[in-house]
């Protein structure tokens, strides 16, 4: 099936560095597609090529089946990872400035309502909090009522509450059938928002698919987590894989009942036992063998 955006054999090389190493994928209309990976994985470079901001060394990006033309910028919205706005302008003036660049789009009040900026419209944009500022940047990306929205690490640096509020906002935008391309290194964010994800590392896509399907295809086990102080087991008593997790130990098991029985036989206290499913972060670590880099 042809997607709204097709990436074909994309390569981006800088002197001495291959940032993107021959990747191909397509994004379907109306889906939220996540590009995950640590800093330096190549996801921002990939997205900037898809946005038409950075030229590719080779390969191509097709928008609605054609090479990106002049109409592309009018039909997409972009929220960069880090961007400055014009100083000394209010939120309203900033929105008006960006609205004037497009022939069609939303009016300021609509945007303010969508991004819950109503009470800040007359505030100097430099005086917004982190969450308010991210909502303004999102409003600027929505100002032309785009068909497709690029969000590059939109919640980096936000506190947990602001991050969750932002997720709600993205969900409401997604409900309007907008195509969203999201880059993030927060696995929880990707799991909650994305219909499909691609995990990148060292410029390559190392896994791609629906989050649950990816987890199911890679993991059949559960994780039992115990405080290290409680984990007093005779060596060799447990056949399962035991992993170090700081103050905790994590036991990977496909037979939760059997493992718990063994632990009880070893007179291990289970008062602080936690059982969890595998997460995207586990998948990332499994695939790359490295800690997440921030």
């Amino acid at each position, binding site marked *: 099936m042809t997607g709204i955006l097709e990436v074909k054999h994309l390569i981006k090389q800088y002197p001495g560095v291959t940032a993107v190493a021959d990747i191909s994928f397509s994004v379907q209309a109306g889906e939220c597609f996540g590009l995950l990976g640590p800093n330096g994985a190549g996801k921002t470079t990939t997205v900037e090529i898809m946005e038409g901001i950075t030229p590719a060394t080779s390969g191509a990006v097709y928008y609605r089946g054609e090479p990106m033309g002049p109409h592309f910028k009018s039909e997409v919205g972009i929220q*960069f990872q880090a961007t400055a706005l*014009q100083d000394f302008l209010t939120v309203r003036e900033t929105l008006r400035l960006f609205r004037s660049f497009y022939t069609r789009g939303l009016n300021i009040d609509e945007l303010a309502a969508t991004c819950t900026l109503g009470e800040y419209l007359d505030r100097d944009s430099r005086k917004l909090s982190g969450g308010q500022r991210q909502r303004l940047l999102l409003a600027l990306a929505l100002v032309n009522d785009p068909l497709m929205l690029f969000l590059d690490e939109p919640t980096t640096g936000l506190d947990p509450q602001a991050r969750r509020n932002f997720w709600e906002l993205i969900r409401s935008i997604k409900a309007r059938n907008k195509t969203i391309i999201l880059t993030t290194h927060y696995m929880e964010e990707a799991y909650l928002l994305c219909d499909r994800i691609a995990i990148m590392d060292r410029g390559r896509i190392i896994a791609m698919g629906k989050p649950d399907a990816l987890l199911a295809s890679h993991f059949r086990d559960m994780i039992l987590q115990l405080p290290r102080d409680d984990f007093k087991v005779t060596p060799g008593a447990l056949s399962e894989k035991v992993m170090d997790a700081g103050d905790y130990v994590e036991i990977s098991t496909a037979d939760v009942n059997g493992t718990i029985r063994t632990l009880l036989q070893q007179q291990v206290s289970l008062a602080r036992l936690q059982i969890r499913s595998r997460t995207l972060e586990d998948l990332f670590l499994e695939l790359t063998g490295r800690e997440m880099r921030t």
Partner: protein
Amino acid sequence: MIRRLLSVLKARNLEFVRDRSALAWNVLLPVLIVLGMWFLFSGGDKPLFKVAVLHGNTALANLHNPFLETRFIDFFTVTDAPDAISKVEHNQVDMLLDLSDPAAPRYLVNGSSPKGYILEKILTGEKDRHYRREIVSGRPIRYVDWLVPGVLGMNMMFSCLFGVGYVIVRYRKNGFLKRLNATPLKAIEFIAAQVASRLMLIMSITIAVYIGTDLLVGFYMAGSYGALLLVALLGATSMISLGLLVAARVTSEELAGGLLNLLSWPMMFLSGVWFSLEGTYPWLQHAAQVLPLTQMLEAARAVMLDGAGILQVLPHLLALAAMSALFLALGAASFKWKHD
């Protein structure tokens, strides 16, 4: 296109007028220039030479020395001869006239001082030749009349080059240009808005300084204000465009500052802001013609001092227009929205 251009222009103007410190400085600087000119040039013609006179107990007025009647020379009494000689040695005084012994008057000049040389010629005179004297009349043009276009032009140059160049580099460095590049805004629209914004600002300030200085000092204006306005507009446009060209690709404020200084300092000295280049090397005079400030000042002085009309200064206007078009075209073609 016009709507986008006007929006960027309005936003830039709002940014400028709300930046209190920048606004205060841009308003204060012209006021200081006006006051400086008033201080320096009010009160009529200043003496050209300084002559210290040693005259013992006899009052200066009672000496009846014709040389002491010479106009435009500031004669003042000294009593400490060694101190006065030291000042002559260091060109702090142009001549020491020692009349303490009326029977044996003497003068001391520094052999390397041009002013001392002139004063010596005036004092000793040329007795063996006679020239016919003819008087011409006309309104004299003072140094201040000649200097005003230079100082105004210099202020415009700094404002145009640095006021635009630094702003663009800052926008690029903090990612604002990259954000604009993600919209349908074109480089030429953004650049044209920056030119228009700075043009509005610099013309307002220059007109205010011109009026203020004229009220305080009063200077010569032989030509039409319309022609002068056209010269100023084209001159400012060419220098703003030059600032934009410098800032078209630069991502470092330090580098931008260096490049802008590299342009502004030669212009300050070679474009005739403070002194005329007449009498210097011909190649230097030719080289100075490629500087927009030279073209603007020559045209402005022709209008203000010689009463030239638009036709007479047309070559300068065409040169300024061509420079503006060239700098803008190069700036737009090489414009970079983001740093690598």
